[in-house]
């Protein structure tokens, strides 16, 4: 690996990001740091990123440290990202759970790295649009993310035009969103199903209900194998034998933990616990 060709302390940056989020910053990300942290440098009044990081390094952990760490996370997301997971949700997972959970009339769905909330909103739209039979059920879509700024955005339910332009069918836009100036706000019929809180997947998990469906998409990819293993292992206790775990296109449980089996949906694989008799 090349020595970092920049004057600021990339190793320190890497270390705090790793400590707080488990995210492993690739050496190439050194070029992104300047752009991503620029606004924080300006707000802090520091002369440069080099100065800012030097100052932070000598100070006890505080709000600016936290902002720096959050700014280095990749929050990219979109409505109905990759399409096929939502097809599987609509055509197979929800119809199946509609029958299996009919006695409790309750569904818990978790968007475990929710970013700005598009994933949770897409799940809510699939339900509202296709499952009137679930109307009287207690349905909770929990969204969690490590970044406070993202959790606040999720709670606001406000999306910019360039965000609603991506992946969201126009019919859903006019049906489920209100226009507010240049932004679009999720209607209560969706937001009432959703709940958001801050949570670090790589730290201790709070008490959460057992989940029927978990979207853990496009976040494991940033972690090292040990962290992936810890999270996937912990996830086992969150799932019932017939619950589904959905990962991102470049993510898998294979060669990390042995407790999941793949369930083949068209153009998309989900995961389920292997031992299907342990917990009914």
């Amino acid at each position, binding site marked *: 690996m090349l020595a970092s060709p920049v004057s600021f302390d990339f190793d320190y940056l890497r270390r705090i990001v790793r400590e707080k989020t488990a995210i492993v910053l690739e050496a190439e990300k050194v070029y992104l740091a300047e752009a991503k942290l620029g606004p924080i440098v300006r707000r802090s009044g520091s002369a440069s990123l080099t100065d800012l990081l030097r100052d932070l390094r000598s100070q006890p952990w505080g709000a600016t440290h936290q902002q720096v760490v959050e700014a280095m996370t990749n929050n990219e997301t979109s409505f109905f990202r990759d399409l096929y997971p939502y097809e599987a949700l609509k055509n197979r997972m929800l119809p199946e759970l509609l029958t299996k959970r009919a006695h409790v009339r309750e569904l818990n769905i978790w968007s475990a790295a929710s970013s700005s909330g598009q994933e949770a909103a897409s799940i809510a739209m699939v339900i509202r649009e296709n499952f009137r039979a679930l109307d009287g059920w207690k349905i909770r879509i929990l969204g969690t993310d490590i970044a406070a700024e993202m959790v606040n955005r999720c709670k606001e339910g406000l999306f910019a035009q360039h965000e609603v332009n991506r992946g969201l069918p*126009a019919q859903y836009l006019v049906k489920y969103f209100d226009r507010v100036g240049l932004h679009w706000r999720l209607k209560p019929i969706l937001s009432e199903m959703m709940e958001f809180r801050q949570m670090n997947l790589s730290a201790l998990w709070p008490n959460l209900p057992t989940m029927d469906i978990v979207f853990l998409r496009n976040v494991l990819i940033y972690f090292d194998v040990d962290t992936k293993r810890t999270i996937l292992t912990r996830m086992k206790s969150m799932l019932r034998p017939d619950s589904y775990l959905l990962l991102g296109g470049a993510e898998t449980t294979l060669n990390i933990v042995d407790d999941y089996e793949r369930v083949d949906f068209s153009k998309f694989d989900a995961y389920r616990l292997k031992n299907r008799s342990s917990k009914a």
Partner: protein
Amino acid sequence: MRALIVDDSTATRFILKSILKEIGFATVEANSGAAALHKLTEDSHFELALVDWNMPEMNGYEFVVAVRQVSTFASLRILMVTSETDVEQITKAIEAGANEYLMKPFTKDAIRDKLQMLGFDVGTHA
């Protein structure tokens, strides 16, 4: 795959053309609804039309209405690409038979997403 690009702005047509080309479309351009309708009538072998709203000589909405009256064009997928962003306008266009709607300014990824939603094979993201 062939696409008709309907927009009175040369610059917008140029951008759309290069995005569509990259995805694998052959493109034909028209600078108004009337011109587009003329091209379609001469040669109906288009799978897709990207249509602006505000244009002289038949606007995009009128174009959609006109196209949806002709059964030969029934399989044409229409994506509105416009700076009209009112809920009423979007609803009106969809009800008239536009298949999808994209608000300007747009990105390449947004176009790809919409085309994928319309059932086109857009390949993998670069």
